[in-house]
């Protein structure tokens, strides 16, 4: 019953999306406002039906309706409720419906917000959204229907993969999808602007918040994926340059370039063509990333199982590329910029170089990701590039970007005089030099970490200098107290100061990345007879070991049993903390084992323990112990990045008026 109901909702949504597409195209020819309204209503109805289809699948998962194949594959009667819900995006079929589910929410917001506005743009916006929605609904309907009934006798369900049973996995996929799908909206406006020849900065202003919000969500998603990998995969790192990880990075890199370069178009009416290229590239890369993770063209432990969808996604990517190139050629003359740039020593030039490096980084990541496809085509064997290659090749790009983050804000618009350069750069250069000396004297000799910390010192001093100058100028003119002045300058220019806060977040993340160069790892074995090991300033002592099962702990161990060790940790002889790494056996996943990381986090260092094996008879436990440096700064930097973006997102009364 639920199978027929869910499938019908998807079918109807697909039909209404096609109808809306047709009506909007007809409106463009007829200019009959009734046709436009009908097209808009058809789209809203399609979105509501898609939303209902998503709700129906959640209902089926929540109630463990095992009459559906999808529920059988990604849930079971033993699965904890919260992970039953996250089953929505755990498998291919559900995740495709989830994609279109989120797009339908975005589409409703856009259509409602602009129900009586921008009638020249909105039909085109609706057409673009309808094309994307109809593609995904078609895929759901024809190939990957999450409402397909179970074939054969109904069982207990296979349960969710243990790796996906983690809080970060509750957030990472939805954030990633929100980030990916969110770029559909600025892309739709860009295409509308191209189609209607409204190529000034209007479409950029209309989509400024969408773009920034989407970028923030994508940033959170990328970091959240890292957090999940850090906690669940048990190898001690958070980024392995896996093809699926890289797929989330492609649109993030071009999207970051885009949110920087639109500032130039908004303020100077420049980079018109470039912004168009960037948003087209960003959106196309979201679809390409989806293709990469679902086609099986490159092997990844994170990818969905390879299916026949590859040709369809490839076709859709090619369609988008052709459409984008076609439009760019067709509107070539209209995309010329309207203002001159005076000097290389200008903020505009800084933004141009920033953009070039971001796009270059994306190309390098793309090259590294697709290298196995090249080697397979040319040599018949897939040779994947490991993290060492990516780190070696991308660190210089990252350092150039870091330097530009400090340099660009110190440059004036149009042209910076020599005196101004001397005045603005002297103090940050001196401060970065002092940072370098301190770092060196602390014993840090590795080249890249040293350069990174020097650059962090430089960029941080430029940002603080900007805050200081703004506050000082206002203090002189207003006579208010310093706190009020600080709030006022932030309030008056939210996007600028919000941006600076985002940059502080990025600096914190870079600091976290440098810690990786100093991580340490040891494999140890502890037993009741030989219960202590010493590593650096820490000593690890096996206190106890035991087993817990669904019978002994029905709430905590609903779908698994666990072998647990209790390790007391002493730092320089004094008790420091206790950690309990455990090894789980999931009963609903064919007794699949999974190690749960035990972690003690501080700003300086993480103690990270993984239980490899535990012999319950003898108490012999093998453990991997890692001392990971500065990892917390990556997560804290992300929080600062979110805070800064939210400040930049707050409505600017002056601009809105």
């Amino acid at each position: 019953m639920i199978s027929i109901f869910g499938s019908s909702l998807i079918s109807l949504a697909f039909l209404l999306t096609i109808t809306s597409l047709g009506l909007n195209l007809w409106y463009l020819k007829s200019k009959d406002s009734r046709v436009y309204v009908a097209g808009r209503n058809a789209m809203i109805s399609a979105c509501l039906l898609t939303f209902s289809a998503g709700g129906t699948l959640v209902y089926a998962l929540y109630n463990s309706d095992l009459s559906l194949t999808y529920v059988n594959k990604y849930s079971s009667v033993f699965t904890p409720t919260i992970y039953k819900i996250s089953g929505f995006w755990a498998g291919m079929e559900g995740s495709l419906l989830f994609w279109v589910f989120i797009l339908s929410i975005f589409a409703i917001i856009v259509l409602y917000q602009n129900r009586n506005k921008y009638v020249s743009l909105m039909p085109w916006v609706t057409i673009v959204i309808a094309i994307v929605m109809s593609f995904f609904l078609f895929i759901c309907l024809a190939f990957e229907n999450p409402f397909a009934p179970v074939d054969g006798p109904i069982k207990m369900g296979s349960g969710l993969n243990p790796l996906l049973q983690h809080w970060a996995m509750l957030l990472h996929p939805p954030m990633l999808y929100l980030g990916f799908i969110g770029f559909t909206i600025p892309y739709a406006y860009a295409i509308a602007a191209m189609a209607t020849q409204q190529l000034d900065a209007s479409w950029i202003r209309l989509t400024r918040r969408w773009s920034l919000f989407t970028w923030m969500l994508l940033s959170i998603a990328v970091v959240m994926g890292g957090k999940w990998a850090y906690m669940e995969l048990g190898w001690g790192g958070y980024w392995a340059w896996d093809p699926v990880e890289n797929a989330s990075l492609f649109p993030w890199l071009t999207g970051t370039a885009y949110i920087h370069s639109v500032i130039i178009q908004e303020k100077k009416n420049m980079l018109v063509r470039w912004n168009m290229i960037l948003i087209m590239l960003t959106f196309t890369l979201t679809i390409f990333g989806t293709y990469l993770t679902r086609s099986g063209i490159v092997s990844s432990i994170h990818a969905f199982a390879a299916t026949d969808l590859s040709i369809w996604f490839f076709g859709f990517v090619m369609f988008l590329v052709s459409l984008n190139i076609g439009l760019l050629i067709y509107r070539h003359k209209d995309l010329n910029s309207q203002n001159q740039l005076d000097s290389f020593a200008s903020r505009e030039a800084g933004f141009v170089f920033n953009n070039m490096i971001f796009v270059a980084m994306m190309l390098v990541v793309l090259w590294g990701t697709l290298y196995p496809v090249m080697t397979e085509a040319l040599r018949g064997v897939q040779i994947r590039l490991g993290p060492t290659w990516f780190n070696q090749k991308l660190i210089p790009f990252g350092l150039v970007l870091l330097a530009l983050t400090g340099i660009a804000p110190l440059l004036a618009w149009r042209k910076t005089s020599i005196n101004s350069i001397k005045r603005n750069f002297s103090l940050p250069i001196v401060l970065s030099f002092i940072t370098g000396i301190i770092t060196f004297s602390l014993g840090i000799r590795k080249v890249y970490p040293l350069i990174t910390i020097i650059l962090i010192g430089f960029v941080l001093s430029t940002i603080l200098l900007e805050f200081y100058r703004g506050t000082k100028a206002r203090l002189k003119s207003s006579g208010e107290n310093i706190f009020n002045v600080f709030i006022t300058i932030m309030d008056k220019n939210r996007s600028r100061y919000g941006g600076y806060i985002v940059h502080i977040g990025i600096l914190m993340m870079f600091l976290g990345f440098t810690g990786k160069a100093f991580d340490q790892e040891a494999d140890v074995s502890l037993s009741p007879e030989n219960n202590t090991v010493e590593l650096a300033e820490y000593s690890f002592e096996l206190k106890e070991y035991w087993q817990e099962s669904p019978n002994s702990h029905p709430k905590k161990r609903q779908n698994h049993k666990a072998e647990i060790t209790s390790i007391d940790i002493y730092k320089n002889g004094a008790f420091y903390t206790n950690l309990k790494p455990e090894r789980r056996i999931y009963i609903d996943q064919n007794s699949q084992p999974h190690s749960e990381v035990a972690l003690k986090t501080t700003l300086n260092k993480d103690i990270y323990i993984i239980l490899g094996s535990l012999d319950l008879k003898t108490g012999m436990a093998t453990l991997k112990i890692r001392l990971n440096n500065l990892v917390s700064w990556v997560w804290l930097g992300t929080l600062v990045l979110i805070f800064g973006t939210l400040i930049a997102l707050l409505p600017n009364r002056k601009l809105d008026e």
Partner: protein
Amino acid sequence: MNKFIYLFLIASLFCVEFKSQRQYQLEQQLHAPCCWGGVIAEHDSPIANGIKLIIKNIISDEFDKNKINNTLLQVYNKNVLDYSNKFIKQNMTDEEIINFFVGIEGEKIRALPENKGLGWVAWKLPTFILFLSILMGIIIINRFRALPKEINQNKKNISFEKVDDEMKKMGF
């Protein structure tokens, strides 16, 4: 095989120390043959752990060929011993160690390409892209510098006016 590798691992654990930088770097340069889904440093599968142990023994100051052969036997099979006897020696370079595993598992195990053929392109292309991007930046800025000053400032609000006009015509 799992049990044997755990036993070997445990045997090697009596002397507890952090993994050497060299060991860590070598583990980053070989893909795990269990699933080819990442480098062996990131994997705890029996074969990945076995390879880690072989590397540890090869680069150890207390080089013991019998110990290495025993581990090789547990991880692979008898056929690999002849091959090992030809290649395994004291003071092997990183490249020799990598090539030893390439001889067993094939090119697929390399996580860093060789600096020849397509591998050469893999190494050089990023540097080329970096310089190209800087060159592109210079070209773009130069083109903007060549433009006449403020071509058409009046164009700025045309679209909104056009939209407003159209809205009025439509009766919104």
